[in-house]
């Protein structure tokens, strides 16, 4: 079914929220990656 043929959808108030697209390793508050914590 094309976009134009879809039944009328419910209206939600517009929202624009910032999201994170980060996929790398977690970072500690000191700015080190968790792997680095174990570096002697």
């Amino acid at each position: 079914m094309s976009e134009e043929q879809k039944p009328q959808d419910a209206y939600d108030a517009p929202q624009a929220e910032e999201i994170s697209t980060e996929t790398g390793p977690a970072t500690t508050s000191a700015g080190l990656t968790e792997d680095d914590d174990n570096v002697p």
Partner: protein
Amino acid sequence: MRTRPPERPVGAKLELTHACNLRCGFCYTDSPRHTLLRTPDLPDDAWHRIANEAADLGVIELVLTGGEPFLRRELVLGLLDEMAGRDVGLTLNTNGWFVDDEIADRLAAVPGLQVDLSIDGATPALHDASRGVPGSWRRAVEATGRLLDRGVRVQVVHVVTPINERHFGAMIEQMWTLGVTSLRATPVVEVGAAARGGRWPVSRDRLRRTIKDFSKTHGDGMRVVLQHGNAGVLAIHDHAAPVSMLVRPGGAVLTDSLHPFRYGNALEEGLAECWSRIVENWRDPEVSRWAKSFRNSRDLADAEVIPYLSDEVPVGSEAKAASHVSDPVPERAVPKDDSGDPAENLARAREHVRGLALNRRYRMAPAKLGGGPEEHYVRQPESGRVLRLNASAAAMLHELDDGTGADAVATLSQRWSVDRSQLETDVLATGRSLVSEGILVPVAGCERVAS
């Protein structure tokens, strides 16, 4: 606290003219009196010389003001062009009356310019009564709209009086609708004409509460600042060294608008020499004595020398000067719209402001879109921020790309059966939000024709 002025001035404020086309009873520069008297101003070439000397001295900000600067249209536009080329931060104060499409285009071409535009109420009745000339509200809001259409940074300056104080909430709401991002509310400073015209008490606490309530509803989408009181500035005079200088329309150099002491003439002695005198004498005993004689801002109106209402005092002299409290001032016109039901006046004014905002055209900034038809993701290239837009926000972004808010409302009302007024509010809010995120940019009429 700054206990020493810097070696060189940081900023300079140039009052390009005494004259003004409006007749505000609270005018701190007492421009209506000077307009009637035709008090002479420095010629254009002198102002160009002074502005260039300020740039040579390394000022990082230049404020062009009046009177109404656009009564000297070619001078102010020429100075803006010239100083932008010298990499000086620029602020222009205006009442907006003369800001037509042509001037708005010229201002939009000045990099980094901030325009401070005066609007004193949510309705013509309130503003025009403050400004003393019918039609001035319409001119001011339309000028603001024109500048916002072109992406010019506008700060609305709102003088709060005992008459418009209780309508402050409606005023900031109105400016939010128009698309304004910054509003400075300033209770009347009792100098100049305001010192001639009685008392102007307002409740700062009530204004603060109104600002807080507004923030709860609208978040931080519009910065609303309440100007500090002035008595404090004077009370700490000995510990708050000047960083900038003020040049009056005839060339007299002062430290600011609150201290009526003259440190020379910009044309005759030059700014560098005047700044040296400020550095040397800003704590002159007579200046300190005068500044410390105030316990609150109301005392200013009873001072022996009242800024802008008395002649300035050469520094080093006793603080006594001729006062112009009894000089004639122009008649204030009775505003035509100062009648009828206030609620109806406000509804009409809201409709006008909403129309200006809904007719603003946008286009998308070069941002990257992702996701599917029901949910958009957009990455702002400069900040790297990624936003997720729900279906209605995504549809609004789509419609506002080379469209106006009115276009978006017309299309989206066919897709969703939602109250039109609510849809208008949502489109305006989404437009504001996406502009502040750098996803949408307003485009002026001329750009539209060219594309």
